[in-house]
């Protein structure tokens, strides 16, 4: 499916290219074209694919297409009754394949023997080879190192698949994507179009709904608290530091930038080590004060606190830098006037500094909120989603935000990978982010109009 999308987009891109560079005069489109090509291929196509997958039931047990499953069934071979497999070696020379058994002719000079892995790689070519034995039987491919008398288990008759052994037709279970014989599944499953079933399940199925709601609530709480904490610390530092002289400010600023300058995946992993309950430095330090080791990453409340603390460490420099920039652009005369009127520091901050900073920061705060909603690295690298919630069957943890839960659904399910469900959660996340961004844009537009 993805290849089809890809080819379609190639055609569109080629057509656009011809139009842009040959059929019309405006130069502007020519400047715009390269970026559009890349965008279509690597942003648009995956989105379309993602939406498509969310409408199917692509998951472990249903990973193949219907055509592939039919092909597997039709090439499935079984041993004829009473027949014994005989050893065989497979050779290849210049695109031609040969089998060597005790019956067959010697292979040509220079033919290379295929190892077991090679046999599997060249399988489609080997399936049709036959060896005629001097006992009248015909042998063909059976395993990577044998041939045997085999027969196809299934054949195609009138567009239905027939089981050759008992002459019965397989029933196709279109709803679940599999073929049935007497109610039991035959062969691998295939993915089918399910429409909005995944989305409906997210809102209706009781265990899924509980999981989804819980992680949704925590996701928003996490994003909100992260912004609140980093903004508070950043602003406090910026305001406190504002009164010092230039040299002091520079020294402090260089130190405060350090968390921001270290690639965050390194910092998060470092904290993961430091917060290790048994070997980490933090607990070792606490031991000096006779405090028993705190399960920073394993306990449902501490894990949440830990991720927030780490995110604070990682995020406050950004807020600090931006607020510093804003403070520098506030004219000093305002402060002098306030001081003449006898305002205390607290009053100056509350009525002068803070409102000015907030109005300037609103777009960035919303942007930071949106960023943290999807902050996969911050959660996943530190706790992997956190201690697993005990009483639920599905793989979700205490600190899982929607996006880390999606990742685990898709790539880590110990009970199988459920790409279609992961895709539907992705689409929902996207809709939320899109809504937030639009609101952000509207607010910025309003402000520039003023």
């Amino acid at each position, binding site marked *: 499916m*993805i290849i089809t999308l890809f080819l379609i987009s190639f055609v569109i891109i080629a057509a656009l290219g011809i139009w842009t560079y040959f059929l019309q005069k*405006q*130069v*502007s*489109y*020519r*400047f*715009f074209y*390269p*970026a*559009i090509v*890349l965008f279509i*291929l*690597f*942003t648009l196509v*995956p*989105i379309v*694919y*993602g939406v498509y*997958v969310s409408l199917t039931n692509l998951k472990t047990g249903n990973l193949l297409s219907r055509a592939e499953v039919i092909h597997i069934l039709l090439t499935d071979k079984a041993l004829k009754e009473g027949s014994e497999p005989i050893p065989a070696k497979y050779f290849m020379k210049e695109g031609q394949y040969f089998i060597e058994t005790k019956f067959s002719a010697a292979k040509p000079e220079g033919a290379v023997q295929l190892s077991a892995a090679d046999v599997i790689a060249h399988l489609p070519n080997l399936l049709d080879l036959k060896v005629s034995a001097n006992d009248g039987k015909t042998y063909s491919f059976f395993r990577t190192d044998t041939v045997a008398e085999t027969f196809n288990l299934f054949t195609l008759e009138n567009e239905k698949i027939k089981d050759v052994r008992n002459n019965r037709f397989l029933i196709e279970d279109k709803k679940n994507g599999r073929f049935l014989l007497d109610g039991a599944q035959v062969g691998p499953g295939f993915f089918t179009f399910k429409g909005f079933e995944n989305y409906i399940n997210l809102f209706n199925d009781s265990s899924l709904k509980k999981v989804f709601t819980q992680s949704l609530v925590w996701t928003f709480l996490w994003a909100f608290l992260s912004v609140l904490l980093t903004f508070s610390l950043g602003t*406090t*530092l910026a305001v406190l530091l504002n009164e010092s002289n230039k040299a002091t400010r520079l020294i*402090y600023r260089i*130190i405060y*930038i*350090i968390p921001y*300058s270290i*690639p965050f995946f*390194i*910092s998060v*992993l*470092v*904290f993961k*080590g*430091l917060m290790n309950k048994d*070997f*980490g*430095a933090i607990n070792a330090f606490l031991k000096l004060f006779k405090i028993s080791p705190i399960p920073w990453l394993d306990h449902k409340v501490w894990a949440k606190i830990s991720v927030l603390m780490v995110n604070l*460490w990682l995020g406050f420099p950004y807020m600090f*830098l*931006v607020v510093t*920039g*804003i403070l520098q*652009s506030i004219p000093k005369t305002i402060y002098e006037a306030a001081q003449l009127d006898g305002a205390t*520091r607290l009053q100056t901050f509350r009525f002068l500094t803070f409102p000015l900073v907030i109005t300037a920061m609103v777009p*960035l705060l919303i942007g930071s909120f*949106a960023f943290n909603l*999807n902050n*996969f690295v911050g959660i996943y690298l530190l706790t992997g989603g956190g201690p697993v919630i005990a009483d639920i069957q599905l793989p979700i943890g205490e600190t899982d935000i929607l996006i880390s839960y*999606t*990742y685990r659904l*898709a790539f880590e399910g110990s009970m199988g990978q459920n790409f279609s469900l*992961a895709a539907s959660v*992705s689409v929902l*996340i996207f809709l939320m*982010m899109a809504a937030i961004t*639009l609101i952000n*844009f509207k607010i910025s537009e309003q*402000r*520039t109009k003023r």
Partner: protein
Amino acid sequence: MITQKREQVYNLLRHLFLIFVVFVVLIPVLCIISVSLTPNGTMSTFFNQKMALDNWKYILGIPYEVNGAVVTSPYPIMKWLFNSLKVSALASILMLAFSTTAAYALSRYEFVGKKSGILILMILQMFPNMMAMVAFYFMLDFIGKYIPSLGVNTHGGLLLIYLGGTPFNIWMLKGYFDTIPKSLEESARIDGCSPLQTFLKIILPLSAPMITVVGLLTFIATFSDFILPSILLKSQENMTFAVGIQIFISESFAGRWGQFAAASIVGALPISLLFFSVHRYIVSGLSSGATKG
């Protein structure tokens, strides 16, 4: 009325708080340095055991001695670092090439879909990349059959995917281009410059600050990215740094914190240095967006 004494107390408290935060910031950094210097260090050692450069030698690929036997690291860690730097640098340059052209078009010309176009592009860019991973893998697999250097396990393929993220940079550059007066281009046009020449000779040099910011942000973002490369890059020779050092913290290597620490510092250094040299531009770039004149 603010007395001298009150003033002094306030200043003292202020500095205490600031220094407290300095400690909180620096302690993890110091921990890492100390762990990297301790052979067989776990994350709880703190400058209290014998220090040696063993871990550093391991990371840098220099053979060293352990109990009399010579040990070299089987992992090409320096190569990983080089790979990361190379991919990030190329990504920055190419990203700039594509973003500046598109931003110029959006800034200077009127055409269909201009107003809402960039907004839609930016919103679409936000789609969570999880499902995209699967799509990317298949797409690059397909391309790789026809153009081997852009296939799955290559840097070229990785770059292609990074370049899909132009919209945000286009938006930032467009904002900057909008502030360059059109009269400059008009006089160039009268002198006989083609649109391309105007773009290259006038607009680009004037946009140096913004180009620096965009280039840097792209560099930092691609250097730190590990999800995409871990799915696409399979052979050890090709891995970027972010992917490679994941090996040191996987389950089978539990306890190799010393080497991980040294690797972390080596990996953090280029970005930190880069960041320190240009943080002023980033601050002004970010806050100018916030204050809007």
